[in-house]
């Protein structure tokens, strides 16, 4: 692992890294759960003492209870602040996770490049961290100012946990500063271990912070621990551990990592484009590759986490579920499909472009066009809407608003099939990339390849079979259930062929050194596209998650009686999200810029007296 490094080792390390991420995630989630459970025992005792006497019902508001300041639209202000806060928070929560992993990889391999890259990542996120806090403060202020009744009601229920949140935030800052400023001090031997422990603590605290904040927002969607009039039972744990809490926790944890990866990827891409020499170019190309790898690894399970969340929303309230998928928000999922397709396509494009780094890639490039055909085809299915926009002549010619061929593509089984195929083929792109610089030396290479092809074919056949059979030939009850075997098939294919691959390429020879930095500039734009599409998509999905509450602050308990209680049109929401995205990108550019300003020295000689 010196110089340009071996490609296979890089990706293997990152796969171990991903495994560690999972462990951290599970430890944090369950460790956090233990912590909460202990806390719960406490609050239950408090609930016993308080009984039902001490709390009032949820406030009933009128339009007059929503103050306006300086002509600012309260909803718009809070929307934008919340969104900006969330983006930064996702970024600063995710970066320490993979910084920690990369640092561990660096320590294990004793390859200083990893350590340097980890340090560069955390440096980027330090300024973002303070921006997160500032935006969180703005969010809090605007909530208190524009929605005082809601805030006071929520603080009756979560007052205590809000206090712990503030304390934790303090702890998070302390650990982060120690971690960052102590980076060069805590190097080598035992000191490195102390530093890694700090990193782990940082992640545990950060994840706990996220879990707490998630509880507040999921309480508003699926209130618990209160009676139908909104009278709090005094049991804070019940309110925190509400129905949608864990689905959101999982979804956000995975999405944050993917998001953090994509933003860091954009950083590397920009540094690549402005690099002054080949060495710098090679470094940032390598960094961009790793960031993109992290983003894709987290992107692959994301549709399933999202599916699980949607299923839980359905299970919690069919009303909310139908508003989410069948009502006016159905069109939002078409926009979402376009964006997710964009993510997949640009991630794939980056991988294909990256094959130029290896001299052995020519053996695989001939397959790329087939992958592209399948990806685009699956993508077209993925975004075909259920309700087609038809002109009158088309309507007459079809004999109704339902298209006999395209109509079935609009419902869930087809979409599930399409997304699983997309994921499988994205993985195939990655597999080709992995192999491009390798020549296997084991005697059974051909047989191994055939088995791998058979595994892929059987997996794809199974996904298609499940999709077609369960989508169109069985009772509707099983339509949705079919997606679970589909997902498991996809995972089996991925894991199975990774294992097989590692055996086939055991002791394999390199074709030649990898030429880091030999990648077209266009590929860097794919990384920008990934970051922008991700940011925008998160904004849009945040809107719908909040929007399905409709005119309720707290669903079925506290009604929103402000003049802004109506649901806006999708176009309006998209415009707000776009403006917020541009604001966010501007701030991110500032963050990146400020991170490199500190290393600049431009003082003319003779300014200070000697």
């Amino acid at each position, binding site marked *: 692992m010196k110089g340009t490094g071996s490609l296979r080792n890089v990706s293997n390390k990152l796969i171990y890294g991903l495994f560690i991420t999972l462990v951290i995630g599970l430890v944090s989630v369950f460790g956090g759960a233990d912590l909460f459970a202990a806390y719960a025992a406490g609050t239950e005792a408090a609930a016993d003492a308080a009984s039902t006497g001490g709390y009032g019902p949820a406030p009933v508001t009128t339009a007059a209870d929503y103050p306006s300041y300086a002509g600012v639209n309260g909803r718009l202000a809070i929307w934008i602040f919340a969104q900006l806060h969330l983006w930064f928070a996702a970024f600063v929560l995710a970066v320490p996770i993979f910084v920690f992993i990369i640092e561990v990889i660096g320590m294990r391999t004793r390859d200083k490049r990893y350590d340097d890259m980890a340090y560069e990542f955390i440096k980027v996120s330090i300024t973002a961290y303070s921006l997160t806090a500032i935006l969180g403060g703005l969010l809090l202020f605007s909530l208190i100012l524009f929605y005082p009744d809601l805030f006071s009601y929520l603080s009756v229920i979560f007052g205590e946990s809000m206090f712990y949140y503030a304390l934790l935030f303090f702890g998070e800052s302390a650990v982060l500063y120690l971690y960052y400023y102590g980076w060069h001090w805590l190097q080598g031997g035992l000191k490195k271990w102390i530093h890694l422990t700090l990193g782990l603590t940082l992640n545990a605290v950060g994840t706990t912070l996220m879990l707490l904040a998630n509880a507040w927002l999921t309480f508003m969607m699926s209130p618990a621990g209160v009676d139908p009039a909104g009278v709090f039972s005094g049991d804070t744990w019940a309110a925190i551990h509400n129905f949608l809490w864990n689905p959101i926790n999982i979804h956000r944890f995975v999405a944050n990592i993917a998001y953090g990866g994509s933003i860091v990827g954009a950083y590397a891409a920009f540094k690549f484009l402005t690099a002054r020499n080949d060495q710098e170019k090679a470094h940032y190309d390598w960094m961009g590759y790793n960031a993109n790898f992290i983003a894709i690894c987290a992107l692959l399970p994301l549709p399933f986490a999202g599916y699980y969340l949607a299923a839980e929303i359905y299970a919690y309230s069919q009303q909310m579920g139908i508003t989410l998928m069948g009502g006016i928000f159905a069109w939002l999922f078409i926009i979402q499909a376009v964006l997710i397709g964009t993510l997949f396509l640009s991630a794939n494009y980056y991988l294909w472009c990256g094959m130029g780094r290896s001299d052995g890639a020519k053996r695989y490039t001939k397959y790329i066009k087939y992958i592209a055909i399948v990806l685009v085809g699956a993508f077209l299915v993925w975004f075909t*809407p259920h309700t087609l926009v038809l002109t009158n002549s088309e309507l007459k010619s079809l004999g109704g608003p339902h298209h006999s061929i395209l109509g079935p593509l609009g419902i869930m089984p087809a979409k599930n099939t399409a997304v699983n195929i997309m994921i499988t083929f994205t993985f195939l792109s990655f597999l080709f990339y992995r192999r491009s610089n390798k020549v296997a030396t084991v005697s059974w290479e051909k047989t191994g390849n055939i088995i791998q092809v058979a595994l892929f074919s059987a997996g794809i056949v199974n996904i298609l079979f499940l999709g077609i059979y369960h989508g169109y030939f069985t009772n509707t009850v099983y339509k949705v259930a079919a997606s679970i075997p589909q997902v498991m098939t996809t995972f089996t294919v991925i894991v199975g062929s990774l294992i097989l691959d590692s055996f086939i390429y055991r002791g394999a020879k390199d074709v030649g050194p990898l030429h880091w930095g030999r990648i077209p500039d266009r590929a860097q734009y794919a990384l920008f596209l990934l970051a922008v599409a991700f940011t925008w998509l998160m904004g849009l999905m945040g809107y719908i998650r909040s929007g399905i509450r409709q005119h309720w602050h707290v669903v079925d308990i506290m009604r929103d009686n402000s003049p802004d209680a109506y649901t806006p049109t999708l176009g309006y929401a998209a415009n707000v999200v776009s403006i917020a995205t541009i604001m966010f990108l501007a701030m991110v550019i500032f963050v990146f810029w400020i991170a490199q300003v500190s290393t600049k020295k431009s003082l003319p000689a003779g300014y200070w007296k000697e």
Partner: protein
Amino acid sequence: MRIPRLLQATLVLVGVYFGFIVVFDYILEAVIPRSLLTMYMFFVTAGVFMVFTYDEDQMRELAAPIKAMVEDPSKRGVRNVVFLLIPLLVGYGVYDKTMPSFDAPVELRTIHPAPPSTAKIYGERVNLLTLENPFRHYETEDPEQFAEYVEEGAAVYIENCQYCHGDKLDGKGPYAEGLNPTPLNFQDIGTIAQLQESYLYWRITTGGPGLPKEAAPWISSMPVWQNFLTEEEIWKVILFLYDYTGHAPRSWGAANASH
């Protein structure tokens, strides 16, 4: 002879475009909506661009004719023609888009609007979330009785519904031609197979006028059947609809249980 890459890319795009039209409009006889085709082509173009440009050499080959056309002094004639044609094409596009036509504007209806949690049916507030078909349990308990109810439902259907929804339940009844929106095709996998029985009950009893505002434009000519039929007749018709089409109503309980 090798086809130049720029021509290859163009041929692929043109081929896919007309391929869609030929396959859907002529072979399958189910027109592909032009709005959808436009979106399809956007992403097909993106895909073609990706395949043709991921490699630096291929990219150069692809761009070479364009570069030559713009920069090479000997290609002056072509350049002038192209630079004249492109603005003209854009101009025609704008003209075509803004020119008023005699077609009715494109309207979009939400075919399955979200149901309210309760609805007033037969003067009674019913909870649509828990409402069940009172005859459904006969399907397993007493199949003969069930078949009888389906039969009765069929009679009600033929007397009242088939004029629009068709005797094959395919939405092509004798009056269907005159209606816009056209009557629903129950055979379609995207209609009743996606819905619970309580949803059908709500839509049949309250009809077009009972549609929520989001289902606008509010022009469905479905009558308010609670004014003409009894509660039992409607439940039996629902049994018939599922029985005849072979679909099964969606049920949340079972879907959750199988998770």
